[in-house]
């Protein structure tokens, strides 16, 4: 457990640094806010809505779900990787069966187009849209 004291000190130093930086800048910096200055920074655009109300694209959710699965996979593979050298070929085969299963899942998700940012039918719709407009 003693080796984790270093981790703890690192965390404490990080927290202290962040706290000190904000405190010092709060004390030292001149303070005369205007309405424009208090607006959330949006790269020059006028922000819409509250800063809490950042609307993310719903498609990110698919990626998070897929990420979560592979996150768990990575966790399962860590003990395997640690003892791989010691146990040799059988462990290698077992591990690759494990990875193969998940690759199968990834291949399915990929093939069905869940990882596409612009989906196939939308792409088709974008291509045909001008023609439809002319026809209409």
């Amino acid at each position, binding site marked *: *457990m003693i080796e*984790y004291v270093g981790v*703890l000190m690192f965390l404490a130093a990080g927290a202290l640094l962040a706290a000190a930086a904000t405190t010092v800048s709060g004390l030292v910096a001149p303070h005369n806010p205007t309405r424009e200055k208090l607006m959330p920074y949006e790269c020059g655009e006028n922000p819409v*809505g*509250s800063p*809490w*109300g*950042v*609307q*993310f*694209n*719903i498609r*990110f*959710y*698919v990626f*998070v*779900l*897929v*990420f*979560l*699965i592979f*996150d*768990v*996979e*990575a*966790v*399962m593979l*860590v*003990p*395997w*990787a*640690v*003892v*791989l050298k*010691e*146990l040799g070929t*059988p*462990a290698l085969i*077992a591990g690759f*069966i*494990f*990875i193969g*299963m*998940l690759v*199968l*899942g*990834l291949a*399915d*998700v990929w093939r*069905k187009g*869940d990882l596409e940012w612009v989906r196939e039918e939308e792409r088709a719709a974008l291509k045909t849209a001008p023609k439809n407009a002319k026809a209409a």
Partner: protein
Amino acid sequence: METLGPQIIFWAFAALMLGSAFIVVHGKNLVRSAFSLLATFFSAAVFYVMLGADFLAGVQLLVYVGGILTLLVFGVMLTNRIYNLNLETQTFQVLPGALVSLAVFVILTTVVVRTPWSQSALIEDGPTTPIIGRALMTEYVLPFEIASVLLLVALLGAAMLVRRRTDL
């Protein structure tokens, strides 16, 4: 746990865990509640480390802090208008709630106090990951592979659920 240092760390993180858990439950802002959950999960990881379960601590950080919490924060941020309304945490059913939580508390305390916690002398203090890896690759290789099938099913199911109805 003889020396003072671990004691201080334990109580500090216990306070952090309970405080952040309180904010999770009683916070008026969903985003703030979600981020408070980070402190709760992290404190649990610290406790795992203090118990010598370093692999479990890593899992806690990777899966809960890195995965579940990301999912949760995304869920909050993706949900339209949910964070703009001020969450009123209403208190109702005070008496049944108090009774149930008291019962849970009594049961847990009884279990903790009455169980003869024996400390095995066989398990040495040290990294647990190689031990787990050896067990997974020899005795428990079938459960290990079945876990991959479970993950596959979860992946396919999740993708299926988020797909639009017409694609089914």
